[in-house]
C-alpha cells in the first residue's frame, strides 16, 4: 500500500548544519531501506515558534515528503523521537488530499470548457453573419 506522507519536523536552532545534513541523510537511508521513496526534502529554515518548546523560541523546520507504507512512517517517527535535537514532528497523509484536489481541478476545467464551448461558436457565428451581411 503506497501512500504519500508529509513529515514535518523541527530541530533545535543551535544545531550545526552538518549535523542536520547527517540527520536528513540517515532518514533518507531509512526510507529507502524500508522500501519507500523520498520525494522531496525542503528546508524551510529558521522560524519563530508559536510557543516555547523545550525552552526554545525558534526552530529549524524541515519538510520531508515520503512515499511508502505505514511501517515506514512508524520507523521514521521512532527515529525522530529518539533523535535528541528534534523538538517536534508531525506526519500528515497527503495522497487523498492531492487526489481530491486533482478531481476538483478536473471538474473545474471541464466546466470551463463546457461554458466556453457554447459561447465561442455563438460569437464566431455572429461575426460571420456580420461579415456576410
Amino acid at each position, binding site marked *: 500500500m503506497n501512500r504519500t506522507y508529509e513529515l*514535518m519536523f*523541527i530541530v533545535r536552532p543551535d544545531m550545526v548544519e552538518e549535523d542536520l545534513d547527517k540527520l536528513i541523510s540517515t532518514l533518507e537511508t531509512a526510507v529507502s531501506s524500508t522500501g519507500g521513496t523520498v520525494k522531496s526534502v525542503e528546508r524551510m529554515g529558521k*522560524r*519563530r*515558534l*508559536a*510557543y516555547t*518548546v523545550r525552552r526554545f*523560541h525558534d*526552530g529549524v523546520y524541515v*519538510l520531508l515528503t515520503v512515499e511508502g507504507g505505514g511501517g515506514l512512517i512508524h520507523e521514521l517517527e521512532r527515529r525522530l523521537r529518539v533523535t535528541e535535537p528534534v*523538538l*517536534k*514532528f*508531525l506526519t*500528515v497523509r497527503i495522497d487523498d*488530499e492531492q487526489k*481530491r*484536489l486533482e478531481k*476538483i481541478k478536473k471538474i*473545474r476545467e471541464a466546466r470551463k470548457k463546457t461554458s466556453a464551448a457554447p459561447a465561442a461558436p455563438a460569437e464566431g457565428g455572429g461575426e460571420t453573419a456580420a461579415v456576410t451581411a
Partner: protein
Amino acid sequence: MAEETRATTAPAESPAPAEGHGQRPGPRGPRPGGGPGGPREGGRKYFRRKKVCKFCVEKIESINYKDVRLLAQFVAESGKIVPRRLTGVCTPHQRRLSSAIKQARNIALLPFAGRAN
C-alpha cells in the same frame, strides 16, 4: 406607501429634537430606524451584509496547515478558532480549516493559547 414613508422619515428628523425637550429622548431615539423603518427594509435595524464563505468565493480548495497566513485569519487573538457564525465559512470548509489549524498548532506554527510572539 410613499406618503407613509415620508410621514415617518420627516418627524424622525425635524420634530424629534423638539419633542426631546419635553419628553424623554430615550424611547424616541431608536424608533425611526428600528420601529417603522425596520420591517420595510427586512426586519433589521442595520443592514448587514450577508457573510460568504471566503474559501468558496475565492475558490481556495487546499486548506493546508503550512499556510499560516491563511489560517491566522480564522484564529482569534486568544488563539481560538473563530466560529462559523462570525466568519461565514461554510461547514465543509470550516471542518477542513479547523483540522488544519489544529495540525498547525501541533507543529508550533500557531499558538494553542495567546498570541504567537
